[in-house]
């Protein structure tokens, strides 16, 4: 039972981490909380759903399609809603308000065009389970956890080993100097938004498979935001650790205490953390954010 709960928690935590990574990437480079991230996750899920139900694509292709689609949507969102404000050197509060507007717009656009119905993905895993030490572990949970960790590890390699990754970290450190090295910072920011959107695409498909696809499903990013803050907003390892901790603790609370207490627990944890560890678990070094 405990192992089963742990794996379920880790799989939810993995999805929280994917979402938190997107938040953290954008926060670290533009210093604002992109509240439209939830809407990108939601639309990523709808894209995946369309590919799975209309084109009957397999899981791998559905995830890939959603990664590309949500990535491009995220870039488009930045170009339309944030880049103008950025060029006018608007304070980050303005960007945050613009992000909230985008979120409301995108959700209502889905209500107006697709409707408020709940959709389910086809059953990719047909409720398959694996027996480990007497516990039945869901294949979907194991798969979601593995892919989440794999994707974040790949992002870590990209950020530390490639020239573009180094440029992103340099931009986080000092965007003006990054442009004085010959980097087109508009393009760099687009790459960051694509990465955040791509992670939102994976998270959206997994959330959709695990639960349902509906216009307000992006609200779950509240949890990703908590995860990012637990880990230290702007820190990539922090987003991973924060997501996993939150996912596991939440699942343990809802299994052993009460599922009603789950969200109370999460938000209490956020408040406690903001009081005692305002920089999060891994956000002590404010210089290195990604």
């Amino acid at each position, binding site marked *: 039972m405990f192992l089963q709960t742990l794996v379920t928690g880790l799989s939810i935590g993995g999805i929280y981490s994917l979402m938190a990574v997107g938040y953290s990437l954008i926060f670290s480079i533009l210093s604002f909380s992109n509240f439209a991230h939830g809407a990108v996750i939601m639309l990523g899920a709808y894209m995946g759903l369309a590919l799975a139900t209309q084109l009957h694509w397999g899981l791998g292709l559905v995830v890939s399609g959603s990664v590309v689609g949500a990535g491009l949507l995220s870039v488009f969102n930045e170009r339309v809603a944030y880049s103008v404000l950025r060029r006018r050197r608007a304070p980050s509060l303005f960007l945050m308000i613009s992000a909230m507007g985008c979120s409301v717009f995108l959700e209502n656009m889905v209500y107006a065009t697709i409707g408020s119905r709940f959709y389910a993905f086809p059953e990719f895993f047909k409720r398959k389970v694996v027996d480990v030490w007497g516990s039945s572990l869901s294949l979907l949970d194991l798969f979601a956890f593995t892919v989440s960790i794999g994707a974040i590890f790949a992002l870590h390699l990209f950020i530390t080993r490639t*020239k573009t990754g*180094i*440029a992103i*970290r*340099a931009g*986080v*450190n*000092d965007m*003006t*100097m*990054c*442009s*004085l*090295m*010959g*980097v*087109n*910072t508009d393009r760099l920011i687009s790459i960051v938004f694509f990465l955040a959107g791509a992670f939102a695409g994976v998270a959206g498909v997994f959330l959709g498979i695990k639960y349902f696809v509906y216009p307000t499903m992006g609200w779950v990013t509240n949890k990703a935001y908590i995860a990012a803050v637990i880990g230290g907003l702007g820190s990539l390892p922090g987003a991973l650790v924060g997501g996993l901790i939150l996912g596991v603790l939440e699942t343990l609370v809802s299994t052993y205490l009460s599922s009603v207490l789950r969200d109370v627990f999460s938000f209490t944890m956020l408040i406690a953390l903001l009081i005692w560890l305002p920089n999060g678990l891994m956000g002590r*070094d404010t*210089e*290195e*954010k990604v």
Partner: protein
Amino acid sequence: MVDERRPRKELEKDLGKEPEKYLEVRGLHVHYGNIHALHGVDLVVGKGEIVCVVGVNGAGKSTLMWAIAGVLPITEGAVLLNGAPFVRGAASARPHEIVNLGISLVPERRRLFSALTVRENLIMGSIRRTDREGIAADLERCFSLYPVLRERIAQRAGTLSGGEQQMLAISRALMSRPSILLLDEPSLGLAPLVTDALFDTILKIREEGVTVLLVEQNALQALDIGDRGYVLRTGRIVESASSGELIENPMIREAYLGGS
């Protein structure tokens, strides 16, 4: 204070002759909101020269550098390279395009990527280049100029000493293989011995064919390695002459060089 390596003596023979215009700042005005920071600055840098801009704190020296690098928007005037304007009102090139023209800025207080290692800072300097062999050769050039950087290669830039940070900042700029280096207050916060060594390397950099525009509060030392100099006061050029003339000018000595 006379340094025999300087070609200044020869240049002084040509006094009165207009230098070959390589980088030219023409009637530059810059505003910060209501504050008029630069009032029609004109200056010329000839190819292969070291030209100094001296002036007290707040004279507008750094503003001039940021405007040439394309970071600060200008209100009037132009900056030209080989007669072609690249900073001119709304049609100005963007900072990354100006780097591509071969103009590289080492700003005041270094502005290193402090969370990145020395190696990563140098990679950032060469980020737009694709010639692997050329990059490797330039890296060696930086290490021969500043051997300590080789020892510190894996260290975070923020953990280096002030002098080492300045060496890294100059090396990072050189990695883009610039034809013009803009140096803003390189001696700021450095011990006199470190500053001497640093100014020696600026001469070496010029010997390799790089043109240098040097902005300094440490006027005497800057003019000592420079060919010509401009004096900037409250956003206006008030004097321009060969470095030797400026050093000898009693009024300038009194106001900017400590009087003696």
